[in-house]
């Protein structure tokens, strides 16, 4: 079988497309970075690909709020193509700015099968609790109860990787929305507290309980990432694509890379 062609969407200001492409390639996929203008002109289509990845960066400078303008473009121009991708069960992954875009486009964050309109969204990603951009390594667990089928093979997996964002605080309109996300298995990743030393054994970890810096941005219920109702669309704030090789870790023992996430993504795209 030839490597699954993965579309990596680049809008002006996207900047972790190269990192994501490297991760996809190491996971056995065939990445292709395409500017949204090229998609718009129809020279390349979503349908040509087996999976879609929206990478990190500052699309259009995030001047109107993180991911806001790219989310608008997805809704205005590509709503149909994206819903076809999801219906076909092809995996869609948004990382950092890509996560913000998917939430603001209404592709993530709904608790029912139908994506919400922009104005009736129930969840968002907003300014970090400390009010500033921050770059540091965090520890994540893939939620054991996540409903996403393509994350199924890596449930409970621990990933160490960096965050690098200013607007990564996951917030729900109220606690009942968070509870509903949890009840439906839509929470995909949570920040973990690894204590004084970076350890990677799942049994020694517990949820960050909102405590900085394990929960680096004040996210509700330590939520670092979620999936949609279909399970095809997944988004997270941290950067697993920046830890796919052992030498990329800053300290601690080897292991707990983000590679299994990309392998699961590519496997689902085959």
């Amino acid at each position, binding site marked *: 079988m030839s490597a699954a062609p993965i579309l990596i969407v680049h809008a*002006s*200001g*996207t*900047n*972790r497309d*190269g*990192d994501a492409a*490297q*991760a996809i390639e190491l996971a056995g996929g065939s990445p292709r970075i395409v*500017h949204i*203008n090229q998609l718009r002109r129809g020279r390349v289509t979503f349908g040509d690909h087996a999976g879609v990845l929206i990478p*990190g*960066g*500052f699309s*259009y*400078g995030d*001047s*109107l*709020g993180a991911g*806001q*303008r790219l989310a*608008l*473009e997805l*809704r*205005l121009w590509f709503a149909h193509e994206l819903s076809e991708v999801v219906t076909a069960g092809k995996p869609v992954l948004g990382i950092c700015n890509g996560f913000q875009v998917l939430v*603001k486009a209404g592709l993530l964050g709904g608790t029912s099968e139908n994506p919400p309109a*922009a*104005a*009736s*969204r129930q*969840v*968002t990603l*907003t*300014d*970090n*609790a*400390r*009010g*500033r*951009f*921050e*770059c*540091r*390594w965090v520890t994540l667990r893939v939620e054991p109860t996540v409903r996403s089928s393509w994350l199924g093979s890596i449930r409970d997996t621990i990933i160490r990787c*960096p965050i*690098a964002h200013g607007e990564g605080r996951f*917030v*729900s*309109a109220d606690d009942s929305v968070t509870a509903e996300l949890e009840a439906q298995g839509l929470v995909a990743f949570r920040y973990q507290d690894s204590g*004084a030393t*970076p350890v990677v054994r799942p049994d020694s970890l517990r949820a960050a309980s909102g405590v900085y810096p394990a929960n680096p941005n004040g996210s509700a219920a330590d939520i670092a990432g979620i999936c949609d109702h279909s399970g095809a669309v997944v988004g997270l704030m941290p*950067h697993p*694509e*920046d830890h*796919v*090789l052992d*030498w*990329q870790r*800053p*300290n601690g023992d080897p292991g707990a890379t983000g590679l299994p996430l990309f392998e699961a993504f590519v496997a689902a795209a085959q």
Partner: protein
Amino acid sequence: MPLRVTVTSHSDPEGDAIVSAAPLVGVNGLAECRVSRVYHLDAGDPLDRNDVDRLCREVLVDPVVAEYSVGDAGTAVGRAVEVAALPGVTDIEARELERAAQQLQIADLRVSTAVRYDLIGDLDDTAVAVITRRLLANDTIEQSHEGTLAPTFTVQADAHCEVESVPLAQLSDSELATLSSQRLLSLDTEEMRAIQRYFDEIGRSPTDAELETLAQTWSEHCVHKTFRAAIELTHTTADGRRTVTRHDGLLAALREVTEELDPWWLRSAFVDDAGIVAFDDHFDLAFKVETHNHPSALEPFGGANTGIGGVVRDILGVSARPIACTNVLCFGPVDLPDERLFPGVLHPRRIRDGVVEGIADYGNKLGLPTVNGAVVYDEGYIGNPLVYCGALGLLVNGSHPSAAQLGDRVVSIGGRVGRDGIHGATFSSATMDASTVDSVGAAVQIGDPITEKGCIEVVERACKAGLYNAITDCGAGGFSSAVGEMGEDLGVEVNLEGVRLKYPGLQPWEIWLSEAQERMVMAVSPGSLAALQQICDDWDVELTDLGSFSGTGDLVVRHGDTPVIDMSMDFLHNGLPRREMAATWVDPPSTAVESPPVNDEMLLGLLSHPDVASKEDIVRRYDHEVRAGTVVRPLVGRNADGPADAAVIKPLGTQYTPVAAVLSNGLCPRVGKHDPYAMALSALDEAVRNLVAVGGDPDRVALLDNFCWGDPTRSDRLGSLVRAVQGCTDGARRYAMPFISGKDSLFNEFEGRPVPPTLLISALGLVPDLDRAIDSAGMNVGDDLWLIGRGSGALGGSVADALYSLGATDVPAPLEDPLPRYRPVHSAIAAGLVSAAHDCSDGGIAVAAAEMAIAARYGVAVEVPADGCDAFTALTNEGPGRLVLAAHRSSREALAEMLGVHGRRIGEVTADSRISLQVQGAGGDTTAGAVISVDVQDATRAFTSSVPM
């Protein structure tokens, strides 16, 4: 009539930050600050309310955390202050909203933005004024008002085209000088006379554009007059002996050493926008460091922002893909009492915070990891901070085309031209005073990183496809410098009529001169233009065809049919008279100082000194992970809070080889206050030992110099500059490391107060195998600790001297023969024998050992060799050539043999989490018990408890 939309967030970290900052500017009554964003929308015709709601719901308002209101400003809750950009200052948010409105088919919407602050608490008029002036708005680029501010939409002006003729004939020397100063030309009388003669010969007066072009091209910033001048130095030693020497060009002296050394891996030095060295058989690395001091003094965010933008364009200017950033910052003390601030100067805290934010904003948005830097605080930088911005790039070996061909088009890509940024080059070539803001406010710009990011993508693809024959960046001087430089040999003909403007109304000379950021100029053969246009369209980058390379050897500029410039390239580039300058230097007298007692507080005091203490609050605002190649980060160790020596970068796309790049820096302004010659060698050594400490090969090091000095027309400033250059050339020879590029920023003075002479040496090297890269924290309990090198015994310029106000003037002696010690250290690291390494810099061996313990969270037990000094001096003296290594006991013999006389075993890593330091006496006897014994936790607290940002 524009409509006003106000958007308010439910939670508001920005308001909270203003409340906590208020007491720092002397206002204690601010209880709460609510921040709202204000958008004035104007579509000419009355706006459909449905459209406004659609715009708000679709893009402007996040329904989960914010709400909006349409209409008037409403009643103020407390004292309401509004802040908006001055007309002409880039407002990216407004532009993005206009573009979003277009996509939502809300036609021709024009937007003006403002921020509204509701200040609640016990505040009188003075308090509101102080908060506004010091926390909310900067007059250089913003207007502020209590109440509501009327919107100012994009500057409206009639498009007109006037070229002024400036009569020079018959003007006396003093009239020429007056003309130069009135027009902000920064040209001296000799230079004005050369211009007068040229135009006398061709029989007409220069145009405004010609005069401005000459001023830019001949500015200190662009042509480095001082570094090309013939200088006579009178050097007086401490005992009064006087020698006079001639220096035939400082730049030539630096280049001469590089030509002498000429290693096989050197690809390009001094001729391009950046220096270039080989990475491996396939790729090269480009490296450049620039300064952006004066803009950062006036508008810290914008100044530093565009500083990063500028140096990244230098990397693009050699056809390289930018892959990492660095920055080195010098500020006044952030706790400076207000009464010691000079009038017209921003407080160091505000400058620091704005500069850091500006660097973070630009680097993060470009997707470049900011991996290496330093911060120094000194009263000498109160009136004139220093902001060094560096960038590293990767290019395919030999892929940089650099010769425009006859008939090539002159093509500009990137941002539009506005009035902001005029006189950037001449502004940086003059000293500052309290009125500087008023006269050159226009030289300060706000960056637009996303537009520059587009240029990066286009240049990479255009280079790969071979679509251009030469490229350079539009830096200070705008088109005048870029086109003028590129067309030096062939001559160019340009028409400014087609240049895309941010707003109408610019005079031709302004279009030609404006340093609008985020633009590159290329020489493109007519046959390649369509392909280049296609790439630009795909990547949202605007392209303008300005004209052609003519072959006439003249610079000809028109605006439509109106002649703007017509002069010979030869005069523009070679007509500048060479300066003859006088320099003096007097060696400082030697001073004996008395050492204070050694105790635990001494170590804690050194660790919390602002220059030593953790920079984590700053570093974490920079993305140092993007591009997935950071091997050694700025923060290292078990809790990632120990300081790294240097950054190791594995460029994305080079996984086929284990080779990685190293970036480090050396900066010793405290030494420079006493002896600029020793400072140069100290800084060079610091950069090198930092680089070696992480595994860099001392035989593959390339250097950059960056001189920040006061007014060089004053002989004492120039004397210290000459001494520093002598230090650089002697250092390059001794270390066998070539300078590949450099930059001087002179005139760093505020009302006659020069900055301390400050030389930054940046080093670029290679780690042969990234798996063998180490940091200062990788040691294990039981490892031996080794000391490389001997103490200098000198306290002049040390942190200990500053902390205890000792007044020492004797500075550490430079190394005569450094490579025999660095080569074996490198071999030991490359062989995997060393588990951790850290250089001895600020705070001497005491701080070096403590920082290793903090990073690893282990104890260290060290017997410091006195090397003939008292205990205080032995522990705190700084000087070249020293490193602390950690290594497993089993490597003891191998290391002893490799390191020879350069390495001594001085202790071990312990499990008891205490930093325990003793001093071994000259006769071999050791001080009874530990002179210092500090718990690692206490040391960590001292190290990390600096004033948070």
